[in-house]
């Protein structure tokens, strides 16, 4: 069960983690994209941090404030896609104060659908959608006594590994898709770093 209080606390860790990961993500993105993914997420994180100071108390409002914060980060597509993800989740939670496992899986699935329709990627294109979907499937399949944080982190890490030897099929990297084989998708690594940050007791691990 995730309450809005848990979620706010997690957002502080989420922004710390994104800012810490910015150089790593810039470097990865320089190989496949514009090299600005870390900078974009750094700005998203600082905007979210600023917004946290005056955030509402219910989940939908918190998620919508996050969407707005990401919408003013930059013109880069990843910032916009994060805004899409937050706004989709905000609409999905309605007025509830907490989310159970099934609710989280449903939100992740709705988010994948929204990101796909906005950004044009489909599952298998080697994007963050594949990571989010892997997390949703793993959460769904986990036994009742599982540590769901751990399940999510493991799924995100395995997704990065599984897609390493596949080509990028969308975005700038698709123009040299063969060159992208063997490289980690920066967006998928970003999702891994975000997922890790949601668990307060675990540190960033190599993947």
């Amino acid at each position: 069960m995730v309450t809005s209080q848990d979620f706010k606390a997690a957002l502080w860790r989420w922004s710390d983690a994104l800012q810490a990961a910015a150089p790593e993500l810039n470097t990865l993105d320089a190989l496949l994209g514009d090299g600005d993914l870390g900078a974009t997420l750094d700005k998203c994180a600082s905007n979210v941090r600023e917004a946290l100071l005056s955030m509402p108390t219910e989940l939908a409002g918190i998620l919508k404030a996050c969407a707005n914060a990401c919408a003013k980060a930059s013109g880069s597509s990843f910032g916009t896609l994060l805004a899409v993800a937050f706004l989709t989740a905000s609409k999905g939670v309605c007025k509830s104060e907490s989310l159970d496992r099934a609710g989280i899986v449903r939100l992740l699935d709705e988010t994948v659908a929204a990101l796909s329709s906005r950004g044009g990627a489909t599952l298998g294109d080697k994007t963050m959608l594949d990571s989010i979907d892997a997390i949703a499937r793993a959460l769904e399949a986990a036994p009742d006594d599982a540590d769901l944080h751990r399940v999510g982190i493991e799924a995100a890490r395995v997704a990065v590994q599984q897609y390493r030897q596949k080509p990028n099929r969308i975005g700038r990297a698709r123009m040299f898709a063969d060159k992208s084989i063997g490289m980690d998708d920066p967006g998928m690594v970003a999702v891994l770093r975000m997922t890790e940050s949601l668990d307060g007791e675990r540190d960033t691990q190599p993947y």
Partner: protein
Amino acid sequence: MKKILNRPDDYVDETLEGLVAAHPEGFRRLGDDGRVIARAAGAVPGKVGIVTGGGSGHLPVFLGYVGDGLLDACAVGNVFAGPRVSDCQAAARAADGGAGVLQLYGNYGGDKMNFDMSQEFLELEGTQVRSVRVCDDVASAPPEERGKRRGVAGMVYAFKIAGAKAAGGATLDEVAATATKTADACRSIGVALTPCVIPESGKASFEIGNEELEFGMGIHGEPGIWRGKLKTADQLTLEMLDRLWAETGLARGDRVAVLVNSLGATPPEELYIMYRRVAAVLADKGVTPVMPLVGRYATSMEMAGASLTLMPLDAELESLLKAPANCPFWRV
């Protein structure tokens, strides 16, 4: 990089500062980072607002066409990079006179995503929004995939005609329908001779030999149809016309708007050498050119090259094209 600038990172903001200082009667700067340009006179109550947006480096596109009988506001991105979603929203709010807002912009993936997101936020606030994208670059996708084509100089006609329609008091749906009709009518193709340098990265938008040109290249250096030795102006112009002609459906007795546009460095002399050939071909085919535009309308900074746009006209499009309009870059 050989450019007149201060700090590369200040390129866009200092351009906007100078632009507003030079034309305070036309433009004002809005938004939390000053990345929205709006009509100085503000939104017109009861009129449909028209907004656009996109990367910098294309003046007069995009923000240059904010003016009377044209656009109401524009969201401004970095050079060749999309505007922020929040600036698209701020532009729409500045343009909203209570009759709804049309988002009218070029068909690029990032811009589409940001304007779609802006529309979603605006609709949550209760603003009526429609979006129309211009896809006029015939080199960027075959006719059966027209929706994938990039937006280039044809945007100028879309801004003008939608602007005139809105100024005439039409409803949001009517303005959107006319903008769609205009966007559907425009066909463009470009040739590139030299690249431009993106100030923030210091890198050229593409590389090309001294004796070479690229036919069909996009305004950000996107690959074209062929690359080869320079040709004469007449040969090039004929090949460009050829590429456009079949898709325009023009026949003897028709009327057409013609835009011969410089991508930045190509001087008016060379554009007129091209227009000379266009006029001769049109005369030969019995098609009448209407209000030909020859000059810098949609550029890529210092890129050398030109584009040709044709827009077949019906009575509605022609009268809206000729309706009064005024911005610092163009007066009709």
